[in-house]
């Protein structure tokens, strides 16, 4: 007899009981009900209601907030209260040309428009975009037969090896036959003279019941692709998340209309694990439901431990822009070769007791499952398959680690690439201090300048009332009399608010600092305000959102204000410049055995900079993270600061730096001087300012060492606080980490808990130090 496969043997064996003549079709079709209208899915209803509630809460709370406070800059508030600002007595000059956007402008994609036809399918490479951090490809194709698909592009950079290849994402839309691919890597534009050659291969694949088969390969050679400086393409995705010491990396995501495919790699949950298993992972498109994976495939071709390709029955057919991939649980499955220690087997009985199961170590050859154990007693599993005693034992014995490891992915879209922008509208000439473009009027209310900064307040009238908008989009610039933009000094502020009872009216305050203090009695400036929400312009200012407001769910974004390009407004004005006062060393203050002194201060009507010197408690990096400065009417926190001198750190003096540490501190053990910046001055009214330093804080390492973390956890546990520690990195090389409190005593806020966490790590040295700063030289 010709040898048969097991499947054939079994098939013929069953044929006697189940003959080929059986046909269930009539019975099945008879049980199909007549379809009626499709109701909204319950989860979608809930999501919609929640979203509306969030938006309503935001609108109400924002309006209420605006009643009592709108300008967040205490220095500008003070000078306004003191009458130091200049009112509406200025000239206006309309801008007739589009305002150039400096720095992070998104450059246009380079048209390619190369086509190939293989197997009856025509693929066109439409455009390519490349900057120092991202590559994007835009493609379109003729309709694909249902069994055909396009694999992800494989891109080679001719003559260079990009650094930090951190994954890719792709959208493949069969409804309009287009695809956008974005990959993350680092290329230095200077090193390739601003251009590079690319080679792109895109496999055409047939999927059938027999599996996947490559049919053809589209190949494109792209010559002299410009490499733009910086990273301007507004798209991002999380690359790696480290949770309680175990890292998961998201290598790729492909989003199709009804499915999503993710490739992820992960560490062993334990160092000696024979292999790991991603037991529970989900994907969420927009605000849709979380979908667990339907297919799971080990990827041996990736030369990295533990990589899997997961398939999800959730796709993007509705123009969603955000996807969240979550890994909820990793396990270390047991094998028949594993023999667990008796202690571990017996310890599992604690968990198993609730099911009426007890196990004990089994001699070799008598194990009832992987791990070397046997039942002492077990219940009838009954009707619930998840209560299979053997399975419950395995779950109790398997090492597992719960996440989530959470990854945010912007779904690639050609909307991210600038197309033919609408020409900037020409503004309508208007009265002094007021300009109108397309029914949107900007009025310059007042302006102010001192030796350190220039500030303005203006009103915008005529934009649609959009309570749920969180920012005003566009660009704001203040230029000097020569037309040079002012800024870069690390001094400045911006705020915006809606005026109560006046729909569509916005108040904006903005200030920026000079590189060198002004020494003239008055100066002329030009203010340019561009209102543009059409593409990637930066935010002019963000509306204040109360901390109790519910954040938008992942993937839900507030509407843009404005939602298109309105135009640019330009105002010329001349204002008096209030002078700078320099203060010398002040009396030292001691608290908790540590002495501090203000060694120098520079004060204007709206700003204060102080050099604070002290001997650190140890050689580590003890910094002033919290500080409060008060004048007679206002109080503010520290805006910024720099390290001037530290006897434990070798620092080069900066060019033209006026901030030099006193000699006595330069010779002090653990001596340090820092410069602290505040957006508050005496405003011509206060005779002294009060500076309060509540504590010193030691900066933590990027990753807290396990032993320190463990010691802190022990301390916190006695205070009823428990936490998870996670680090993550993004595809563009950034990232961060931190803690998530999993248990807090009733009534304790996250902020209070964080303070306890810092204290437990030994990173706090309490004060407080109260220092008086006169505003005139003594």
């Amino acid at each position: 007899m010709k040898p048969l496969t097991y499947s054939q043997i079994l098939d013929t064996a069953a044929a006697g009981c189940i003959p080929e003549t059986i046909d269930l079709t009539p019975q099945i079709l008879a049980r199909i009900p007549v379809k009626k209208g499709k109701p909204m899915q319950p989860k979608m209803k809930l999501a919609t209601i929640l979203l509306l509630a969030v938006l309503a809460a935001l609108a109400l709370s924002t309006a209420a907030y605006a009643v009592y406070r709108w300008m967040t800059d205490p220095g500008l508030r003070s000078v306004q209260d003191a009458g130091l600002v200049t009112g509406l007595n200025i000239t206006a000059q309309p801008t007739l040309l589009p305002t150039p956007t400096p720095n992070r402008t998104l450059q246009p994609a380079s048209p390619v428009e190369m086509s190939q036809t293989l197997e009856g399918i025509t693929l066109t490479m439409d455009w390519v975009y490349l900057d120092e951090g991202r590559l994007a490809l835009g493609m379109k194709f003729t309709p694909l037969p249902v069994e055909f698909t396009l694999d992800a592009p494989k891109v080679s950079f001719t003559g260079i090896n990009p650094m930090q290849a951190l994954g890719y994402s792709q959208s493949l839309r069969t409804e309009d036959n287009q695809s956008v691919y974005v990959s993350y890597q680092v290329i230095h534009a200077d090193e390739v003279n601003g251009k590079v050659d690319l080679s792109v291969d895109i496999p055409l694949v047939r999927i059938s019941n027999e599996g996947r088969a490559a049919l053809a390969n589209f190949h494109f050679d792209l010559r002299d692709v410009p490499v733009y400086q910086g990273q301007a393409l507004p798209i991002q995705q999380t690359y790696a998340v480290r949770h309680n010491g175990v890292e998961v990396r998201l290598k790729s995501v492909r989003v199709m209309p009804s499915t999503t495919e993710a490739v992820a790699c992960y560490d062993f949950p334990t160092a000696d694990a024979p292999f790991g298993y991603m037991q529970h992972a989900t994907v969420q498109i927009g605000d849709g439901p979380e979908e667990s994976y339907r297919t799971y495939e080990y990827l041996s071709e990736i030369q990295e431990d533990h990589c899997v390709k997961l398939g999800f029955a959730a796709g993007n057919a509705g123009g969603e822009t955000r996807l969240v991939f979550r890994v909820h649980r990793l396990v270390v499955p047991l094998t028949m070769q594993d023999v667990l220690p008796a202690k571990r087997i017996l310890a599992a009985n604690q968990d198993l007791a609730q099911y009426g199961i007890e196990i004990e170590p089994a001699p070799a050859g008598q194990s009832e499952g992987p791990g070397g154990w046997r039942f002492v007693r077990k219940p009838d599993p009954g009707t619930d398959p998840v209560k299979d005693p053997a399975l419950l034992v395995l779950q109790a014995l398997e090492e597992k680690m719960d996440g989530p490891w959470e990854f945010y992915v912007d779904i690639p879209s050609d909307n991210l690439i600038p197309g033919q922008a609408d020409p900037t509208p020409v503004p309508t000439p208007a009265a002094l201090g007021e300009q109108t473009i397309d029914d949107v009027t900007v009025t310059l209310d007042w302006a102010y300048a001192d030796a350190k900064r220039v500030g303005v307040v203006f009103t915008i009238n005529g934009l649609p009332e959009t309570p749920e908008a969180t920012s005003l989009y566009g660009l704001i610039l203040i230029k000097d009399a020569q037309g040079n933009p002012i800024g870069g000094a690390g001094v400045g502020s911006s705020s915006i608010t809606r005026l109560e009872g006046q729909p569509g009216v916005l108040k904006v305050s903005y200030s920026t600092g000079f590189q060198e203090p002004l020494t003239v009695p008055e100066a002329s400036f030009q203010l340019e305000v561009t209102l543009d929400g059409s593409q990637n312009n930066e935010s002019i200012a963000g509306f204040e959102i109360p901390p109790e407001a519910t954040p938008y769910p992942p993937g839900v974004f507030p509407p843009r204000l404005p939602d298109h390009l309105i135009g640019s407004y330009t105002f010329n004005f001349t204002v008096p410049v209030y002078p700078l006062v320099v203060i010398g060393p002040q009396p030292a203050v001691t608290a908790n055995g540590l002495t501090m002194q203000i060694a120098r201060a520079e004060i204007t009507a709206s700003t204060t900079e102080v050099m604070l010197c002290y001997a650190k408690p140890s050689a580590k990096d003890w910094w002033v993270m919290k500080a409060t400065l008060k004048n007679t009417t206002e109080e503010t926190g520290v805006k910024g600061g720099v390290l001037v001198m530290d006897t434990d750190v070798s620092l080069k003096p900066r060019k033209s730096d006026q901030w030099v540490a006193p000699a006595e501190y330069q010779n002090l053990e653990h001596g340090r001087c820092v410069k602290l910046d505040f957006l508050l001055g005496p405003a011509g009214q206060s005779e002294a300012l009060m500076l309060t330093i509540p504590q010193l804080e030691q900066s933590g390492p990027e990753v807290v060492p396990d032993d320190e973390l463990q010691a802190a956890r022990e301390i916190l546990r006695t205070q009823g606080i428990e936490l998870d520690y996670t680090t993550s990195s993004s595809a563009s090389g950034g990232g961060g980490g931190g803690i998530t409190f999993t248990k807090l005593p009733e009534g304790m806020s996250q902020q209070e808990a964080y303070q306890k966490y810092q204290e437990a790590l030994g990173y706090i040295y309490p004060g407080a130090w109260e220092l008086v700063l006169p505003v005139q030289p003594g």
Partner: protein
Amino acid sequence: MPDQTAIRCLKSGDIGGLETLIARYQIKAIRAAYFVTQDEQMAEDIVMDTFLEIYGHIHSFDESRPFQPYLMRSVVNKALNTVRKRRREISLEAVDGTGQVEKLLAQAASVESQAEYTALQNQILAAIAELPLRQRAAVVLRYYLDMNEAEMALALGAAPGTVKWLLHTARTRLQTLLGPQRSDR
């Protein structure tokens, strides 16, 4: 009509797509269910229910994935659950089939005639019937439906380690029964 076309037809409301899929896979599906349940009528009911459930959720089915493994996983899982629910009604207590398997070993190794093969088939069915339920499902998935261990893990909702264990035990019995490896996988 390829499976993908049939599914697309079904998604667009054309019931002909379902008829195509039923005609193509019902026999294999019923036989797979039968191996697990050992009951012809129960197997037919399970396959009917499975097709109806797939019809009800067809809008979420990923067209780029092959249909057959999805259908067979659903059938075997439903068969497992159905048998467990009716456990008190039919006797499925696992018995030690080792002795019986050992008796079949010599015969299986020397099958040369159709008559012997036919006789052996009946014994194969009997040996499978004697396997514990989850091992029986593992055998169907691996040897009848040609799934790999990762696919089996997904089908059984179990970790790969569990699948290895199930197969290890079942394989010992079935290799004894079926003789030297004949599978091409």
